[in-house]
């Protein structure tokens, strides 16, 4: 039986037909709804936990940090969830940058903000920032991986880690708004470090759900 034999082809086509796979447009719409639902729930949780806090720092400092954090988060999402022009995904070093270097980049931004706005170094911080970041980020990371499973032929673990870190960065915008404190040690340990924890969690998810593995053929 060769690759071009009609029997092999028929067998494979029959196996394909036993596994429904929606077309691109349907998946795109479903993904948009999923993301919107996640955003609504997370914002709802954020409000339920107290919502934005003005804090004791200046409004300019808050806007400066939020804007920078949001821009970095958007870039992280674009890199982590996009594949560029290749079905093999982003280069591994890009994913590594998001998964591991991103938290340091965000802390670097906070450091820059502290340099620009020195009085904010003593601005009051809140307790529970780590828990909030993890709580708002872990469930959408898991849900996305379960609802939109993708076989990532290269670096599934690193892809999962980058995506989790990117989601954490987005959630960090809310956390930052909830806790606009300026103490650097607090920012490092409670705002930036949780993203590394998320990266580790995302790596495990990616390895488990994202790798290419043998699927049941569905033959009787």
């Amino acid at each position: 039986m060769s690759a071009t034999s009609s029997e092999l082809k028929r067998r494979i086509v029959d196996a394909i037909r036993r596994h429904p796979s929606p077309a691109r447009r349907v998946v795109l719409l479903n993904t948009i709804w999923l993301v919107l639902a996640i955003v609504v729930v997370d914002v709802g949780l954020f409000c339920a936990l107290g919502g934005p806090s003005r804090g004791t720092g200046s409004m300019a400092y808050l806007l400066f940090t939020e804007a920078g954090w949001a821009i970095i988060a958007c870039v992280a999402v674009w890199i982590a969830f996009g594949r560029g022009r290749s079905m093999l995904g982003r280069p591994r070093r890009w994913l590594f940058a998001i998964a591991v270097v991103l938290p340091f980049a965000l802390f670097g931004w906070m450091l820059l903000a502290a340099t620009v706005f020195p009085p904010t170094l003593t601005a009051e911080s809140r307790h529970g920032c780590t828990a909030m970041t993890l709580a708002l980020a872990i469930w959408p990371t898991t849900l996305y991986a379960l609802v939109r499973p993708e076989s990532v032929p290269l670096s599934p673990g690193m892809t999962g880690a980058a995506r989790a870190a990117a989601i954490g960065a987005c959630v960090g915008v809310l956390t930052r708004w909830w806790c606009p404190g300026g103490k650097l040690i607090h920012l490092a340990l409670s705002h930036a470090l949780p993203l590394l924890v998320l990266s580790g969690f995302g790596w495990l998810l990616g390895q488990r759900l994202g790798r290419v593995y043998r699927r049941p053929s569905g033959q009787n």
Partner: protein
Amino acid sequence: MERYAAGDEAAFEELYDLIAPRLLGFIIQRVRDLPTAQDLLQQTLLQIHLARSSFITGAEVMPWVFAIARHLVIDAARCHRSCVPIGADLINELSGSLDGADQIVEAHELVERIEGELARMPPQQRRAFELHKRHGLSLVAAAQTLQISVGALKVRVHRARRTLEAALFPSEELSKEAV
């Protein structure tokens, strides 16, 4: 592929005709068993079907397809290693003749010990040993698979043998029989 990703179901058969021959050749080079290769071909195409919604317009198809196939080949090799015990001829080669009624039990115990020792072995030696002894590849084929010279492969297989012999047959008498 673009048409298939957009929902044109009839495009799959055209896609099959375009990529299946090359893909099967790619897989056969790695598994050297036609039924297994055909099964992996089916698995690869199934993966492509399930991931069609994520296809990027204008992206190259074959590198993606080969990457999926390669991982499935690796997955199949791992399963084969855990599911299929080492052949009896290998057992005999390493242990010499076993006496009478306990032969089967001792052979099974020996297989378990061999599997354990292989797991502890340095990866380079283990891969060389398994390709040549377990999968039955010739020295040349195994060397090509590992992208090393035949001489280097022989050294690794020899070291793996010595490691197994030393671990499984610590007494000199049994070691001599095994050699």
